[in-house]
């Protein structure tokens, strides 16, 4: 058997703090690597970030490729793409995973394009399987099945990269589970000297303003989410009131975000965050597949909707058919009278 390359994860960090999505991908990467009998390796870029390396071992990386250079801090896409492409060409990884973050989504396509590799965005599951390309009469063994919802609704597509390795995908934060770290795990550090020329450093950062996210949906045990059925920005107050009463966070559907009623940080779903709280209350949300992709694994789901046929009811444990403006105040009242 010809030896195949390893599973690689691009590690995103900001000020030396590793993004959750990268650790989630390390855990998923380890599953895939175990299945294929290969290693899990991390690509870590930045400056003065060696402190991240131990953490990556603990989450399951066998190797960390570390490139430190002041031209790699803060993140800009051209030097990052160059360093990764050089590494990919040298080591030929079989699989390369990126978080579907703003950085990942501008970096991964640049790398894929140069490498003429396929790239699938926003996967909700990754598996290993064989692939029979009937059109071209070719069969492939142990390929990465890149699974994502497609085209607005009722469909899940399984996509395969049939060209050159690596097989590249992006995955949203929260989609893959993060396992607990094991501080006894050790790994190997490989330091990289980035070969950057003037060409990759033409973009100059004049100003950079950043704050940590205002909401931590993933970390919240109770989420009250509002959709287009809430009706207005003003009426979203109801959602906040219920969340506050129950001690939860506020989530939203994309339709509510697009309407400008609430910030994108609150969006749950395929292109937002994936959450698994103890309780998810969906208010005026129809339950499109993209929304369900982000919340269907919640332990308990309450759906409030005035349409008895709304698809959200099919994933709900409790269905309340009716007017949300009427039901939410009742719920707040009921809760306040019990505690």
């Amino acid at each position: 058997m010809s030896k195949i390359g390893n599973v690689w994860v691009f590690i995103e960090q900001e000020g030396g703090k590793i993004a959750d999505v990268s650790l989630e991908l390390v855990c998923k990467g380890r599953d895939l690597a175990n299945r294929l009998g290969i290693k899990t390796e991390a690509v870590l870029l930045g400056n003065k970030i060696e402190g991240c390396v131990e953490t990556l071992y603990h989450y399951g990386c066998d190797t960390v490729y570390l490139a430190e250079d002041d031209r790699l801090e803060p993140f800009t896409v051209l030097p990052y793409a160059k360093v990764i492409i050089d590494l990919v060409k040298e080591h030929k990884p079989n699989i390369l995973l990126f978080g579907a973050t703003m950085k990942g989504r501008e970096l991964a396509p640049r790398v894929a394009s140069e490498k003429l590799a396929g790239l699938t965005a926003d996967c909700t599951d990754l598996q290993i399987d064989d692939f029979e390309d009937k059109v071209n009469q070719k069969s492939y063994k142990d390929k990465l099945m890149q699974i994502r919802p497609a085209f607005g609704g009722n469909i899940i597509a399984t996509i395969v990269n049939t060209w050159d390795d690596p097989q590249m995908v992006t995955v949203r934060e929260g989609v893959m589970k993060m396992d607990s770290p094991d501080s006894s795990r050790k790994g190997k550090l490989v330091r990289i000297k980035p070969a950057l020329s003037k060409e990759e450093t033409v973009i100059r950062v004049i100003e950079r303003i950043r704050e940590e996210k205002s909401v931590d949906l993933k970390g919240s045990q109770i989420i009250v989410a509002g959709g287009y059925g809430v009706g207005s920005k003003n009426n979203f107050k109801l959602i906040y009131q219920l969340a506050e009463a129950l001690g939860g966070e506020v989530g939203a559907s994309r339709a509510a975000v697009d309407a400008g009623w609430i910030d994108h940080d609150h969006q749950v779903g395929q292109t937002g965050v994936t959450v698994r709280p103890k309780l998810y209350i969906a208010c005026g949300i129809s339950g499109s597949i993209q929304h369900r992709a982000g919340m269907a694994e919640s332990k308990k789901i309450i759906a409030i909707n005035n349409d008895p046929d709304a698809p959200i009811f099919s994933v709900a444990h409790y269905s309340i058919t009716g007017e949300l403006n009427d039901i939410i105040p009742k719920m707040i009242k009921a809760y306040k009278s019990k505690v």
Partner: protein
Amino acid sequence: MSYTIIVFVKQVPDTQNITGQAMKPDGTVNRAALPAIFNPEDLNALELALELKERFGAKVVVGTMGPPNAAEVLRDALCRGADEGVLLTDRSFAGADTLATSYALSCCAKKIGKYDLILCGRQAIDGDTAQVGPQLAEKLKLPQISYVEEVKELSKGKIIAKRAIEGGYEVLECPTPALLTVIDANEPRPKAVRRIMKYKKAMTRSELVKFHANANYTDAEALVEEEENLKKRNLFIHEWSATDASADIERVGLKGSPTKVKKIENVVLTATETKAIPPTEQGISNLVHELIVDHTLG
């Protein structure tokens, strides 16, 4: 006119209205079955280009790859203020993934020739991948600024733009030519009434031929003359095939796409055991009680 700005746009199926019937067995979308619209963030890219045209003077060329009726988005763009339209259309482009698409668009940009900026919407609503912009930049070896909200300065050889990053923004300085992907941060202007009157008559060659099919033109020269006429009045939409754009046929469409669809599954909702709660005070009170007892609510 000092600058040339290319804006790449896409006609997309209105994804709010897709049903299973809209998918072909090979996993591609049957676009004919869906209403087609101007991809929203591409309108933001066009708006940014038109603002730059007003501020600095520029020729705005709008390009799209798609079936013949994608000329509609080009007419739309002309009505809003664009100067020229290019339709890249060829049967061989069908079934393209983002890599094959960005390759085809790179050929289109090269044929357009000299440009200072290429603008794309961040992403199209039919796939939400946001990949074509960065891939096109790489194909043309251009620096890219993604998620642009606003252009602060443009001068020969240099652009300063503000762009969104996670939890904030950055102001970046970048040499031109460069590629920018644009997010929903401006208010796209509507079509101008005066321009609609004029540009609703803009046509591609195929449309011109079709238009005259009924008029029973027999000699080809008359058509050529019509075409010249349209060109003079700036109503001619360029229509390029893969060959016209010097595209390598192996690198476009399904053939040029490394990603293959293995299978498409209809989503069967796993019926969760659902308890119907009456929307009454009593019903809701009982529910809240149940959730407190089982420690879901604390």
